[in-house]
């Protein structure tokens, strides 16, 4: 396929959620995963070099166009929105879920030392946290984990892409 890069660019452009290589492969039929990945790499580099208003990023197991940083003010003005904001309590709760998943509510509360019911509900509604199932112990407590949207929101390719807890410590100095 001689216009492979253009086709892939178009597919990513029209998608709102990150597009996976598997989806592109299914649409293009005769193109290998390797060719698709390498075209995506080329595209990412081109946007990087151009260094304009949008960039191609690899997030949540797929590829997505995102605005460049430091353009927030203008974009928000267009959308008439407030920036996404999570309270420190929500961030702490999300951090425990992200690093301890699959995790029970009682475990989060033990770490944070406070009741987290309301905050957890908020994170579920924002679709950053999901119910993974129930633990097979008496009372069958619900276990929580993070969602694809969590990866997308924090610009992570996968959970393994999360900085380690030690890395955060070092940044903190």
């Amino acid at each position, binding site marked *: 396929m001689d216009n492979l890069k253009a086709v892939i660019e178009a597919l990513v452009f029209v*998608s709102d*959620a990150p597009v996976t290589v598997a989806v592109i492969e299914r649409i293009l039929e005769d193109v290998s995963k390797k060719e698709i990945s390498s075209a995506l790499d080329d595209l990412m580099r081109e946007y990087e070099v151009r260094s304009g208003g949008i960039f191609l990023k690899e997030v949540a197991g797929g590829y997505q166009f995102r605005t*460049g940083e430091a353009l927030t003010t203008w974009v928000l003005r267009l959308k008439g929105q407030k920036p996404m904001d999570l309270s420190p309590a929500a*961030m702490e709760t999300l951090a425990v879920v992200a690093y301890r998943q699959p995790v029970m509510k009682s475990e989060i509360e033990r*770490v944070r030392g406070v009741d987290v019911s309301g905050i957890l509900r908020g994170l579920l509604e924002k679709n950053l946290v999901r119910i993974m199932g129930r633990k097979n112990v008496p009372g069958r407590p619900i276990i929580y984990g993070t*969602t694809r949207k969590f990866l997308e929101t924090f610009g992570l390719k996968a959970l393994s892409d999360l900085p380690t807890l030690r890395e*955060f410590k070092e940044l903190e100095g």
Partner: protein
Amino acid sequence: MTDRAYEIKLDIFEGPLDLLLYLIRKNEVDIYDIPIALITKQYMEYINVMKSLNLDLAGEYLVLAATLTHIKSRMLLPPSEDEEEEEAVDPREELVRQLLEYKTFKEAALGLGRMTILGRDVFSRDHAFEEEIEGNGRPLMEIGIFELVEAFRRISIDTGRHDIMEIDIEKISLSDRINDIVDELEKRGELTFADLLGEMDSRRRLIYTFLAVLELMKLRIIKAYQAVPYGTIRIRLAG
């Protein structure tokens, strides 16, 4: 420290452990060797200010206050004979472990906050056209009860059904609704969640239908799928 200073600080604590960490930092003491009498005294002062301000004092603050007092009293007592035999455990040990763990996650939370966040620092295309493009090759993912409940909440708000003065003429049973849904699925293969609930003219029917769907999911007779979050929910027979 004046009361005013307390007042400013109060709402920035994320809980009793956070307050304790703050006191340790403020006094510049070693977290592994907390001067428990001093910290307990200051902690109590904060608690009393919170109480005097009639702030809604979460029970957790009082639990930690009790723990601190208990540790303090144990530090004052000579180690019991039992403890001497098994190399006296520092009464602060458990608290220190808890504090360090909390501190780790507090730092992780700050770290997450410094990352490039979608919707705050960068933006992607709007999610508004989800419905039109969702069939476009995106695989359907099985969804759980929570997504269904969320969708139900949206549908029952969307349709703006009023439940005032509803006269319940119709007798509906849950098993009838369950059978209806299974029949309909056998006939049509797939139903959207909105199909199922959209036709409902009474709130009671709406709720029974929803309960029937939940029951069928629990029994693993049907499965629900979605291509994208908040997208159309499709119901199919399992197996």
